[in-house]
């Protein structure tokens, strides 16, 4: 029984069957990759997990509880954090403030009215935030206006915001797209390390096979909304159907 159990999930957009009978089980403290051609329904699947979309049928259980019918913030409070395909950060805020908000969310729950206390008196949270920034190599940018960062930096920030929440399940939608090679490698290391240290389960969508094969312990290949195969990286690499439909020459 995995920490995340997706059963028979279906989702239609008008005439398009975006997800068809998707079953997925992610074991605790593993890294599970979801790959597949563009438009296969990978992001849609993640959207169903975090409450952005509600599946037409099927069930999604996390940690023994159903996530369906819960609002996004409730699902996050259960321990699921997500990095989006296009960076979603608080553009008007500084990097440090961006980091503090998830810290508050973790400490205080979905709503707490600290109307008078100063942000600067939150020493402990600031330390956590700084430490996380350090880990993603962004400490020097902590007072920067986050909207004016380059895109690779925005991605790293978003990932840091999710990691600092110490989620049980981390959902990553192409986290390294547009990231420089060096940072991609750092990210791989970081994710590996954090997964071990903090006992985090990771589900990752990636088109960069280097990342996929370095991180994933299991891989699901999704095509046209249905899982094609699920297997270990080695087997996937050699799988002829996957090669033809997805990997092309890269394999």
């Amino acid at each position: 029984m995995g920490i995340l159990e997706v059963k028979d999930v279906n989702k239609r957009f008008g005439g398009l069957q975006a997800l068809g009978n998707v079953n997925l089980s992610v074991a605790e403290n593993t890294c599970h990759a979801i790959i597949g051609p563009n438009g296969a329904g990978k992001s849609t699947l993640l959207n169903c997990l975090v409450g952005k979309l509600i599946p037409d049928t099927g069930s999604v259980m996390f940690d023994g509880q159903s996530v369906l019918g819960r609002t996004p913030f409730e699902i996050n409070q259960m321990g699921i954090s997500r990095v989006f395909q296009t960076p979603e950060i608080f553009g008007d805020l500084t990097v440090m403030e961006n980091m503090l908000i998830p810290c508050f969310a973790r400490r205080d729950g979905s709503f707490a009215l600290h109307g008078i206390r100063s942000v600067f008196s939150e020493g402990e949270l600031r330390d956590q935030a700084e430490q996380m920034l350090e880990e993603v190599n962004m400490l020097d940018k902590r007072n920067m206006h986050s909207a004016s960062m380059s895109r690779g930096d925005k991605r790293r920030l978003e990932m840091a915001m999710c990691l600092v929440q110490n989620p049980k399940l981390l959902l990553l939608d192409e986290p390294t797209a547009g990231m420089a090679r060096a940072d991609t490698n750092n990210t791989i290391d970081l994710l590996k390390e954090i997964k071990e240290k903090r006992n985090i389960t990771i589900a990752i969508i990636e088109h960069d096979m280097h990342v996929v094969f370095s991180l994933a312990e299991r891989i699901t290949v999704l095509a046209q909304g249905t899982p094609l195969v699920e297997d270990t990286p080695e087997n996937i690499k050699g799988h002829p159907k996957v090669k033809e439909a997805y990997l092309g020459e890269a394999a």
Partner: protein
Amino acid sequence: MNVKPDFSKNANHAQTAPAFLSVWDMHAYYGESYIVQGISFNVHEGEILALLGRNGAGKTTTLRAIARMDSPQVNHGEIWLDHQPLHKMSSYEAASVGLGLVPEDRRIIPGLTVEENLQLAQIAPPVGWSIERIYDLFPRLGERRSQEGVTLSGGEQQMLSIARALARDLKVLLLDEPYEGLAPVIVDEIEKTLRVIKEQGMTTILVEQNAVRALQLADRAIILDTGSIVFDGSAAEVLENAQLRAEYLAI
């Protein structure tokens, strides 16, 4: 190897050199932050130039400056395209003389369907590929033609963004991380297309984090670091120079 092109201060290089697109001593700012710090380079007709560098090096800024976007502001410098002074034009004028940009964040226009996004590109002359031909290259777009553009999957949006550039008759194509978020097979497909249009005489500047892939395609390469050119030479040279690769590209 740290070659800066040799421009004598007084000569207007662009009028003498055989270059097709020529950037001369360009300085670009976002508000008060000084990003592109005086770069000069030439691109010859029919050439593919790879523009490489770390996150935040200023690649996107350079492309946006050439495309004459409102930000960054180019405070100094000249940009010539085929003997026309781009630096005196606004972005729509630059587009009308044959410049096209595929922006890094795709910029699909909300509220418009896929087809309308493409039609929009063909309103102002010069018109390039027909919409049918585009659908041949990207069948997925054809299938989704009446879907709202922004609801496309990430990769589909990237296809649409490239397609929109092809829908115009371009002399110079600026590609900002065009492979991002695309399945490996599609990347192969696009690479082929780029070769084809190169044959037809299109000049291309390619910004890409996957440096190896970019260098295999490109004729020449420029490496940017914190807003300055640190290398300008043939693509093969970069692939061979391990030190350069390690220092600036981490590969």
